[in-house]
């Protein structure tokens, strides 16, 4: 086990730069920092989406690593294909890593991800979750939270935003009996980096689901990305946990939750929420926390 990673000891080499992501982009921050842990030998796969759209524009390539854009549905398939190819060609300790957004993971890519985890060979999959299809213009995905405005769940006269709860991708992945899975937030960067490190050390498939705010899609200031991601955890609306050796573990238990408004209010996508809807969001949160406190290692 390596020493804990932090801002002082992390690799200063940049492996992802010169891309065209928006200011304050949480996803590109996650990618950039994760690569510092994964190292330049890692082979990277990303589907069609924001990260590939901003970084593979001929003739300007933003990855120092080997990297490939995959068909949208097949991040995990291409990733494990690279891993198998490298292994069969005799490379020592090959490391293939897939990065995909919420839609690429929980919707169109879920079948390939499930199949890849099932095959049991080592690979790392990092879901950078910004809770909607941002690249195509902020449409609802299976990971859009309750109440959120998106361009396909607009705040209408009759229906106010998204009426569905967010899919629990972390537990869906864990239900495969995966070697290692974790949730993370761009508000707790050291925690994220160390989880990437842990995934790297595991022999089988591992999955990290990181909440990565999108100022453009969420409607908040570009300087607030980290703060908002931190508040998601501090309000209890996003949970930092791990699944390892068949057990769920809670990583961070706030003594008391910050009011949910502190997370929701700076974001335009939630500005229409009524008191009743805020109550429902609180209820969704509390139910999940009751479940966690009863069933997870705390």
């Amino acid at each position, binding site marked *: 086990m390596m020493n804990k990673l932090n801002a002082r000891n992390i690799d200063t080499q940049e492996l992802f730069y010169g891309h065209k992501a928006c200011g304050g982009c949480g996803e590109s921050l996650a990618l950039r920092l994760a690569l510092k842990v994964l190292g330049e030998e890692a082979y990277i796969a990303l589907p069609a989406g924001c990260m590939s759209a901003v970084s593979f*524009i001929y003739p300007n390539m933003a990855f120092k690593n080997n990297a490939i854009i995959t068909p949208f549905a097949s991040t995990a398939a291409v990733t494990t294909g690279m891993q198998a190819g490298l292994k069969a060609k005799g490379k020592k300790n090959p490391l293939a890593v897939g990065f995909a957004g919420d839609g690429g993971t929980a919707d169109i890519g879920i079948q390939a991800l499930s199949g890849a985890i099932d095959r049991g060979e080592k690979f790392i999959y990092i879901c950078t979750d910004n809770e909607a299809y941002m690249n195509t213009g902020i449409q609802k995905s299976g990971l859009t939270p309750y109440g959120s405005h998106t361009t396909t769940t607009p705040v209408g006269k009759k229906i106010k935003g998204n009426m569905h709860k967010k899919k629990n991708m972390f537990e869906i992945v864990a239900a495969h009996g995966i070697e290692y899975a974790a949730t993370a937030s761009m508000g707790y960067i050291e925690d994220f980096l160390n989880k990437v490190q842990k995934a790297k050390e595991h022999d089988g498939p591992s999955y990290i689901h990181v909440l990565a705010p999108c100022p453009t899609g969420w409607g908040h200031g570009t300087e607030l990305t980290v703060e908002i991601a931190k508040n998601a955890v501090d309000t209890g609306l996003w949970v930092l946990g791990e699944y390892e050796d068949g057990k769920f573990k809670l990583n961070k238990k706030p003594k008391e939750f910050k009011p949910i408004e502190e997370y929701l209010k700076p974001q335009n996508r939630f500005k229409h929420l009524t008191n009743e809807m805020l109550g429902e969001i609180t209820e969704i949160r509390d139910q999940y926390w009751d479940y966690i406190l009863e069933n997870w290692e705390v």
Partner: protein
Amino acid sequence: MPKYDFLNGNEAVAYGVKLSRPHVVSAYPITPQTKAVEKIAQFVQDGDLECEYMHVESEHSAMSCAIGSSSVGARTFTATSSQGLLYMLEGLPYASGARLPIVMMNANRSIATPWNIYGDQMDAMFALPTGWIQIFVEDAQEALDMMIQSFKLAEDHEILTPVMVNMDGFVLSHTYEKVQIPEQKDVDDFLPEIVTAPHLMQDENPMSMCISAGNKHNMEFKIKQHKEMEKAFEKFEEIDLEFEKKFGRGYGSAIVGYCHEDAECLLVTAGSVTGTAKNVVDKLRKAGKKVGLLKLRMIRPFPIKLLKELCSNNSTIGVLDKNISFGYEGSLFTNINSALKQNNHIGETYNFIGGIGGRDITPENIEEMFDVLLGNKKAEKISFYNMRCEL
């Protein structure tokens, strides 16, 4: 002593793949391809083939895994059929655009609906514009040999194009024939280890792959790919000659003529029906009729010049299609008509459609087609054979 075995087409393919020593095989089962991937799995489980066998959850992932492994320079094989080919269709231009030398066997089968597991060649037609080299084989021996030849063709650094070998479902995939299995050492000589192409991902010189190219560059990428595909004709012939030298049997060019030189009329066939048609040609030749046959082995890239060399300018040409492009005609017919037009061919052309959904194409049917081509029988431009009712 050459080793013979009694194999069906699927098993022959499996032997061809095994002898080619792929690094990675990713495959999802679909009738009538299953016996091929089962046999390869058996080789792996018995320790007779060392490769990463990926049990994928769908054809889409079979092709995507193949894209992943091929893009790091691994020799890669997959196989599918019918609905499976259609499900992986997204990955086909993806792989060819990235110049990935994947080899795939497609056991030709009907397309739903109505559902049907039997052989026609409808599935392959969906893949015509995808940038894959498409080959049809006549029998199990050719299927085995074309596996070995296809890796050599696909992986050649002047070609770097994926190859799809079409083998008729059931008629070939499930029919047993006497097949010669080449010696491993001879195959190793003929097909050395794959050399990673410079544009692929590798440790020493990291690459970005499957990039995006906007409207300033995109068309140049596509047209270059198109132009480079033409190089396959020469390489295809060259590889076959080398194969013949090594193994004592060869298959010829992208189109192979049979009794074509003085023929007044020619029938164009692709796949297993060629064997039946050759028998009919023999019979009619004995009766003094100047008929001939063109066996279409490669339909992408399409051998326009070769077609000109093989048929005289005023010969009547019939095209036997085991597919139909709804609302138009058989797709081989469309392709051949266009090529003939470019070659200033003046003879009549006819389209014979048969074998849909596994319907038999009998020697009598083919005799009737030649009757049309010889002018002894009237027919519409497009006619359908062995129909069980009037339409």
